[in-house]
C-alpha cells in the first residue's frame, strides 16, 4: 500500500491555527500531511515548492489566510497571484499541477482544514507515487 508523502506549508496566523482548531475539536484526518509553519503564505517562493517535489514529495499544500484576513494585510495576495503561475510551470515541466494545492483556511475553520487535508490526501493517493511518474518521464 502506497502512503503519499505530503508537505503542507501553513501560514502561522490562520491556517496553522486552523490546524490547531481541528485538533482541539478532535477532528480526524489522514496523517500524511506534514506541516511546516511559515509566517505567511507569501513567504513561500516557487523554489521551495519545487525543491519539495525534488525531495520526492507526492503533494505540496500551501495554505494561507482568506483574502482580506491576512495577518500581514496583503501577504497572501502575492500567494494568490504566484501559485497559479507556479501551477502552470509545473504542468510545463510535466508535473501534474493537481499535486500542488492552494487553499485558504482561517483560524476558526478547523472543520474546513480537516476536509481540505482529507480531500487532498485522497486526491494524491489516487495518483501514482511522484517518484514513479518522474521515472516514467525520464524513460520517455
Amino acid at each position: 500500500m502506497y502512503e503519499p508523502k505530503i508537505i503542507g506549508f501553513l501560514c502561522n496566523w490562520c491556517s496553522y491555527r486552523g490546524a490547531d482548531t481541528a485538533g482541539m475539536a478532535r477532528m480526524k484526518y489522514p496523517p500524511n500531511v506534514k506541516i511546516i509553519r511559515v509566517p505567511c503564505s507569501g513567504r513561500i517562493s516557487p523554489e521551495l515548492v519545487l525543491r519539495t517535489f525534488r525531495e520526492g514529495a507526492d503533494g505540496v499544500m500551501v495554505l494561507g489566510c482568506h483574502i482580506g484576513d491576512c495577518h500581514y494585510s496583503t501577504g497572501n495576495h502575492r500567494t494568490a497571484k504566484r501559485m497559479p503561475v507556479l501551477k502552470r510551470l509545473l504542468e510545463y515541466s510535466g508535473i501534474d499541477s493537481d499535486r500542488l494545492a492552494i487553499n485558504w483556511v482561517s483560524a476558526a475553520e478547523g472543520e474546513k482544514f480537516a476536509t481540505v487535508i482529507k480531500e487532498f490526501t485522497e486526491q494524491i493517493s489516487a495518483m501514482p507515487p511522484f517518484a514513479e511518474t518522474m521515472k516514467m518521464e525520464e524513460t520517455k
Partner: protein
Amino acid sequence: MSEKIGVYVCHCGSNIAGVVNVAEVSAWAGKELAKNGVVIARDYKFMCSSLGQELIEKDIKEHNLTRVVVAACSPHLHEPTFRNACARAGVNPYLFEMTNIREQDSWVTTDKLEATKKAKALIGAAVGRVVYQQPLSSLFVPIDPQVLIVGGGVTGIQAALEIADSGRKVFLVEREPTIGGHMAQFDKTFPTLDCSACILTPKMFDAGNHKNITLLTWSEVEKVEGYIGNFTVTIRKRARFITEDLCTGCGVCWEKCPKKVIDPVFEAGLGYRKAVYTPFPQAVPNYPVIDHENCTFFQKGTCKVCQKFCPTGAIDFEQQDEIITIKVGNIILATGWDLFDTRKVPNYGYGRLANVYTSLEFERLSNASGPTGGNIVLRDGKTVPKSVAIVHCVGSRDQNYHPYCSAICCMQSLKFAHLVEEKTGADVYNCYIDIRTPGKGYEEFYQRLLGEGTHFIRGKVAEITDAARNASEEGKLIVQVEDTLIGKQRRIPVDMVILSAAMEARHDAKEVAQKFGISCSHDDWFIERHPKLDPVATMTDGVFVAGACQGPKDIPASVAQGAAAAARVLSIIGQGEIEIEAATAIVDDVTCVGCTQCVSSCPYQAIEFQAERGKAYVIEALCKGCGTCVGTCLPKSITLKHFTDEQIVAEMIGAMTVMKSFEVVAPVPVEVA
C-alpha cells in the same frame, strides 16, 4: 557534528501518550537522529511544568546542549515557555524549535502506529531545522512619550484623561467642531437613566482644559509614518474661519447669523443650527465654526454679519486649512461608529413615512436640550403620540444587512420604551427577536419595564405601512408583525415608530485602517490583536483601538476600553524603549540587483529603495517578518531571519527523510531476459 541537540517528547498526560508511543519516539530520536546531532532524547509527563522546564535547563548545563527541540502541543501555546527556559540556561531562544504532536497529531489521528510515525517525521523535521537556526537578538527602539488619540467621543476622552493625568502629552484629534461624540447627543443612559450630558460634559471640560491635552477639533489625520515609538503624524486642521486666540465663545456670531440650516450631525436632522455654529452650548472647545457650504458670504459674496457683530474681531474669512506635523510614540484609535442607514430597509418606510424615526432622532427628540425641548411629539411638532412601536434589530441580526448583534439596541429600546411611557403615557410596543440584556443591572431594567406595562411582541417586523385596511388603522402607521409567541400575524396601528438601528463601522473605517496600518473585519470593524486576551492592541505595534470602532459596544465597555488602551500605552511609555520583532528580513547587498520588486510587495512599506546605492533596504523597526519579500525576490537576496530558505528546506528534508525511511522497500522484480 559540533551541535548538541536535546529532544524532549511530552506526554501531555494521556493527551499525546494515549495515542503516540512517546517512549518509542524518544528512543528512536536518540538513536536514529544521533547522526543529526541529537545527543539526548527524553520523554516526560508534562514538559511545560516547572519540573519539565528544569529538566531541559539541567540537560543544557550538564550536556552542554546547543540546541533544543520540544515535541508537545502547539507553539502558539508554549513556545514562549520553552524559549524562556532555554534563555535561562544560556541557550539563545531562537536556537529552540517546537513541533506540534498534539493538536496536529495525537488529537487528529486515530491509528496509533500512524500517529507515532507522524510524530517521528515531525521531530525529524524539527531536528533538521534547528541545526540551521541562528541566535537572534531583538532590536530596541526608544519610545516618544507623546500620544495621539483619534476620536473625541467618550472613549477618546477617557483615554486622553488617563494618559494626561499621568503627566504625558496627548494630542486629541476630532473631526467635528467639538469633542463629545455620540454620547453628547443622547438623552438618558441605560440602565440608570442618568442624564448623558450631565455625566459627559464634566469630562469634556476636563479634557478641554487639561494642560497635557492638545485638542485638535475640526481636524483630521492625513498621514501616518513611522513605527512604534516614532510615529510622525500629519494632521489637517480645517479652517474654522475663527481666530481661536481672539474668540471668547460669547455666541453673538451665531445669534446674529441670518442663515438657518438643518443640522444633520448633532441634531440628527431634526433641528436647526446657524451657518456659524457650535453644535451645542457645552461644546468643547466653545469656538464656533463657519460652515463654508452654507455661509451666505462664502456662497454669495456678501453678508459678513457675524464679523460686524463679533466684539473681539475673531472672525477671519481668509483663514486657511493648517497642516500640523506631530511626533508621537503611540496612537489610540477611538473613531466610533455610524448609525445604520434605515432607508436601506424600504419596508420600514423610513424617509417615506414621516413618523418613522431612527433611534438617534429619538434621542434628540427626547433630549431636554433637543429641538423640541424634550417633548416627544410627531413630525408636525405638536401631536403627542398615543401609541409608539419600537422595532429592534433594524439592520442587525439580519442576513440582508449586518449579521452581527449590535449589542446596545435592546437596552436602548427598553430605555426608549420607558421614556415614552413616562413622558407621554402612550402605549408602547417593543417588537424584538430576542431580548439581550447582558450587563450589570440590565436584566433588572428589563424586568422593571415588563412591570411598567410595555407590550413585548416577539417577532421580526415585516413591514411598516400607512395603507389602512379599516377605520381603526386610518391615519396610523401599521406595524405588520408575526407574534411568534402566540403564532399570529398582527397589525398594530401606532402613531410613531422608532427604529432601533444597528451600530455600524464608520463609513470610512477602511481608509482609516489603511492609514494607520491596521486591518478591518469584513464588517469594517477594526481588528484587535486577540479577541479575548488582547482586545485593545492591534497587529501594528503602537496602534491601539478602543470603543465602538472595534465593534458595537455600550458606554461602560467603551470607557473601559479607552482606559485599557491608555494603560497599555502608558506601560509602553514606561519601558522607555521597546523590543521589536527579531525575525525580520535583511537584504544581501552583494546580490541585490535593485529591481524593487520587494519594495512593492511589502505590506508595511518597510523596504525602501536606496537609489544612491541601487539597493533595497529593510527598515527593521517597520518589518513584521511576513517574508512576502523573500518569496518575491528573484536573485534570493532577501533573507527572513528565523525563516531562511536553508531552515525551511532542512525542515522539509527532515520530514521527507523520516517518511521515506518508513516506506517498505518492495523487492525489485528480477527481470528474466
